[in-house]
């Protein structure tokens, strides 16, 4: 009886420790978003830290968990910029797709594959943003075509720069987070 209650207490402690680590890592990502450190930007574009976090979270989890993480982090990024167009769409997609990839089965576990996933997901989430911006313009604007082509030209530049710089920085976040979750037995090795 005593041992069960102690065990229960330990599990509870571990749960809150895990929640703490998760919250602090997200907070770290949020706080580093407005910073532009030398060497951390490409054509004025900084790594998409929240996207890297969602990828790191979803790689070894199920699509539902990935989607929830995408939703939450997307809402947070909306709060830090502007509510429309929402960042949630791209990040939810990222979470689901990353989880669906079944990395253990098809791709080897290393930094390169995480960087590759981040590259692809950055392109997808920027595309989701560009589509929302275009849609918004079609609804609101009087003259669509010149500005629409501008959006997609800009999208090309942003998607490529963001994909390159985010995939380069992905291991920085993925490695410690994944190690922690593996050690806690939340995700399998």
């Amino acid at each position, binding site marked *: 009886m005593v041992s069960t209650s102690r065990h229960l207490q330990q599990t509870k402690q571990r749960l809150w420790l895990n929640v703490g680590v998760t919250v602090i890592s997200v*907070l770290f990502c949020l706080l580093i978003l407005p910073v532009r450190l030398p060497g951390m930007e490409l054509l004025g574009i900084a790594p998409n830290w929240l996207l890297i976090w969602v990828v790191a979270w979803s790689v070894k989890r199920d699509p539902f968990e990935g989607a*929830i993480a995408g939703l939450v982090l997307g*809402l947070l990024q909306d709060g830090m*910029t*502007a509510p429309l167009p929402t960042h949630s769409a791209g990040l939810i997609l990222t979470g689901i797709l990353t989880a669906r990839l079944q990395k253990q089965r098809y791709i080897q576990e290393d930094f390169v594959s995480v960087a590759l996933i981040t590259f692809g997901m950055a392109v997808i989430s920027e595309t989701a943003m560009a589509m929302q911006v275009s849609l918004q313009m079609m609804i609101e604007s009087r003259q669509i075509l010149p500005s629409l082509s*501008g959006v997609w030209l800009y999208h090309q530049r*942003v998607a490529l720069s963001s994909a390159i710089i985010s995939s380069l920085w992905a291991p920085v976040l993925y490695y410690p987070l994944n190690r922690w979750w593996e050690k806690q037995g939340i995700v399998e090795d």
Partner: protein
Amino acid sequence: MFAIRRWWGLYARRAGLIALAVGVAWAIRVTQGAVIYEIYQWITYPLQAGLTQPEQIENAYVLELQERIVELENQNQSLKSLVDYKANLPGESVTAAVIGRSADHWWHQVTLGKGSRSDIAVGHVVSGYGGLVGRVIAVTPNTSRVLLVSDPNSQVGVTISRSRVMGYMRGQRGNRVTVEFFEKNPDVKAGDVVVTSSYSRLYPSDIPVGRIESVNLSKSPAPEATIQLSSPVGALEWVMVQPFEPLEDVDGPPVELVPEGEP
């Protein structure tokens, strides 16, 4: 009933955590990330730049003074013929450091290290060395967020200082800023000084904005000119925040400006 209770027994904690996470994220979204920006300000406070200003900013300042003189000369001429000229006196301005850039790739924003405690409020106009920079769109006690004029969502009514031709300026994605004119054949040439117009709802009139870089008169539906902003929007360190009351509701659709000289 039993199934629901069993489900609750199994997933109560998980559901609770998900609800908590979504709830907190929603709250932060609704409060425009106030908590995060306050923490950001608190952490970066020791790292914020001192009063060192590179030559670029000094040059921009000289450029601003030149533009102001051109604008004043032109204004003086037109003033002689006006009787009911009403001066809009600018209030006390606050100097604030830029402590962060935009938190994603689709918005051109900066974060300032002063907020409502320094009497900054939403709608106040931000200018840097060189001229107009943007306007405040969100404040927390110690930070404020500025939408730059280079953002596609900010539209500014502008006047060509030399010929008083009206137009409106909007940012294009990727650091280009263009002006669309209301007249079919505007009197504009490269090098002309651009200032905010008196029709602008969100900005006070006669703040220097930049110079015309190139003009494209054949552009449809309206002639267009590309502007070189005189303030280094990409490398801002210090800015001045000027109190300003927007004339109408900010979130409404942009008004159709009436070109000057037409009945």
